[in-house]
């Protein structure tokens, strides 16, 4: 009995922390492959590079745990970003510019939420529509032109806080917020329950529509912040910026162990997932891997992550079936 328990504990540990072991292994392998990899400068660079995508990924993580997703996040990022830059150029106020980005992110996501809760549209379709609309709106507002000379706006993306690049501080701050929301609020626990079994969650007294709407609103805040950081980092309001970032975000979440069937996922797992992708990209560049091959590798990693997720789940279930049949 004791041995069985120990065995179980080990399997639990393995499945709970396997993602961090993978991250550690990748770190060591990268270190051995190229000594420049571990330099403080390089690690800082990687962290800054993944920050925008990872902030989007935190929003996605909450949505995916809840059984949804957001395809529109990169487009809404662009719309929020260009409007924010433009407002900064008009008013010269960083506070107002920042607020505008968040308001735009939230409004777009309230529309996503309405489509999903009131009109029962599948999140995939609802956010696909928003993805197209928001990108169109960003292009229409700027007439397809980039906005340059953004002056002091670059402080968000290029400034430093405590000697660290500001985007890294934002990323860490939002990591803590996401962790707190998921772990320490009624909302967070409801998100897991809805993703795990929506009908049972409803029958347990959870207001499913309200929780889904809130998940979108939180995602909207994250997207708005990501919009500010993105535009600020690249020195301009780019209506065509961040194309494909929604998939970067989904990739980080999935590699980090967030299950697309819902009910499973953590903020720290997603961060680890983002770093795995970041490390891989970086080391492939450092050792001079063909850039097309890099893309193939990135795709293969997603496939592996999903296969592992499904395999781990069926393995958990099997002993139970065996014990029933033994009866």
């Amino acid at each position: 009995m004791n041995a069985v328990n120990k065995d179980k504990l080990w399997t639990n540990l393995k499945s709970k922390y396997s993602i961090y072991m993978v991250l550690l292994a990748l770190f060591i392998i990268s270190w051995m492959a190229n000594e420049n990899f571990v330099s403080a400068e390089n690690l800082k660079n990687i962290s800054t590079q993944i920050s925008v995508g990872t902030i989007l990924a935190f929003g996605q993580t909450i949505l995916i745990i809840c059984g949804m997703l957001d395809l529109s996040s990169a487009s809404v990022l662009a719309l929020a970003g260009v409007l924010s830059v433009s407002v900064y150029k008009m008013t010269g106020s960083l506070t107002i510019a920042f607020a505008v980005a968040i308001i735009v992110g939230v409004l777009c996501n309230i529309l996503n939420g309405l489509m999903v809760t009131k009109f029962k549209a599948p999140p995939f379709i609802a956010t696909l529509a928003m993805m197209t609309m928001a990108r169109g709106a960003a292009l229409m507002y700027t007439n397809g032109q980039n906005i340059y000379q953004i002056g002091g706006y670059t402080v968000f993306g290029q400034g430093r806080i405590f000697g660290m690049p500001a985007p890294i501080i934002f990323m860490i701050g939002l990591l803590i917020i996401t962790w707190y929301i998921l772990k320490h609020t009624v909302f967070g626990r409801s998100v897991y329950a809805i993703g795990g079994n929506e009908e049972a969650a409803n029958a347990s007294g959870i207001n499913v529509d309200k929780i889904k709407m809130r998940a979108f609103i939180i995602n909207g805040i994250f997207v708005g912040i990501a919009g500010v950081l993105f535009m600020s980092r690249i020195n301009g309001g780019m209506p065509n910026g961040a194309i494909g970032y929604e998939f970067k975000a989904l990739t980080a979440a999935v590699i980090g162990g967030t299950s697309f069937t819902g009910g499973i996922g953590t903020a720290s797992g997603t961060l680890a997932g983002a770093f795995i992708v970041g490390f891989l990209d970086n080391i492939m560049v450092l050792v001079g891997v063909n850039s097309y091959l890099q893309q193939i590798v990135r795709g293969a990693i997603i496939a592996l992550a999903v296969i592992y997720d499904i395999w781990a789940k069926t393995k958990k279930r099997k002993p139970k079936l065996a014990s029933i049949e033994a009866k």
Partner: protein
Amino acid sequence: MNLDIKLRVSNIEKFFPGVKALDKINFAVKKGTVHVLCGENGAGKSTLMKVINGIYKQDAGQVLIDEKVVDIKNPIEARSHGISMIFQELNYMPEMTIEESLFVGNWPRDKFGQVDWKEIRKRTLQLLEKENLSYSPETKLKDLTVSDIQMLEILKAISYNSDIIIMDEPTSAITQKEVEVLFKKIIELKERGACIIYISHKMDEIFRIADEITVFRDGCVVDSRPIADYDMETVITQMVGRKLESVFQKEDIAIGEQALQVKGLTSAGKFKNVSFEVSQGEIIGFAGLMGAGRTEVMRGLFGLDEYQGGEVTIRGKKVHIKNVRDSIGHKMVMLSEDRRRFGIIPVRSVRENVSLSSLKKFIYKGRLHAEEENQVVEDLCKKMNVKTPSYETSIESLSGGNQQKVILAKWMATNPDILILDEPTRGIDVGAKHEIYKLMTMLAKQGKAVIMVSSELPELIMMCDKIYVMAKGEVTGMLTRDEFTQEKIMAYATATITQ
């Protein structure tokens, strides 16, 4: 009439995890007869029919057609042996047209092996014309009424020119006029020499069309005789008499003030004019056959579905329950009959499942108080005797009985006054059933009002202070403890309501 045996089953056995669904079944159906199968829910009738139709594979025994052993692997093979089946629960694809649905799996081919749509159209039109149905073959099934669809299913089964036609409660979804049409068809089929296996709970129907009756109970054949040897009472007596798996002594509990009163609860198409009441410390039961509307009433009461008419009074106060949160607010909770669908959150831990409906007790002042949560979860799980390696184990890896106790613990955490338990012992083993009975007694002793819906008469009789019986969405009778007999309950449950 040729009375040769057409279909015979010999010593058929079928096991499902934990239960013996069919135990050495023997019976025979003669050509040109209607053979009615009777029995309570779960007696094994539908399971046996699924074996004959090739949906399930028997674990032992043989099926014989014309006294030759056949091995039927799937419904298409069954059809080639001349067997067709009409199912109790309609499974249809709403976007399909009539002509598409009539030939699913049996498409006529042209000489190139392609589906011959011209032939399909021709045969559909012939059939519709012959049956006097004024639909276009291109009408989609979703545009038809349920009874039309059921009628089409019946016509489809007949149109195969089968010799063995299985009808599993064919009249549960059709109107009286259509029942007459069906019975006329059945007589035509008999004259053609086909045999019909007819499953029904409706005594008046059974005695109108049956030539022979076989009664099932607990996966066994109790008796099989020609109709002349039976009367309604004999059938009911043979149907019930089910063995009690777990004997439990009901305790005398003082009955307190009225906790819940329901008057004339009505929901269009589901249930009508349902009234009952339950007091503190009382356990009341709801009996009835499948589809009697018991679960629907409870779902309406609990706020999972809407109800249109009627009055609900809780502790003397009139309330209108619009959703589950209202119900929990009035301290009324419900254990659903479908544990997998409405009960458990499979991927999450026992702890999270227990605390799900009372999170506000542990999450306040801006953070989760994990120690308090663990304490409450541990206390409740111990009280409910939940067997789990740890409270962090995923609920999915627990046995059905333990899952059920976890869900009960979830509701206990909200400190309810009224508990609705819909089939609380379904699909759990004997030991766990006994524990559920013990828990119910404990709850009643604490002064809680308990409503128990069950399809197992013995457990209702054992546990309840009074039993309401439902049929076709209405309460057809109420019995107090001194009046309880399985026969009386079954008579109410099979009663036909006169409009």
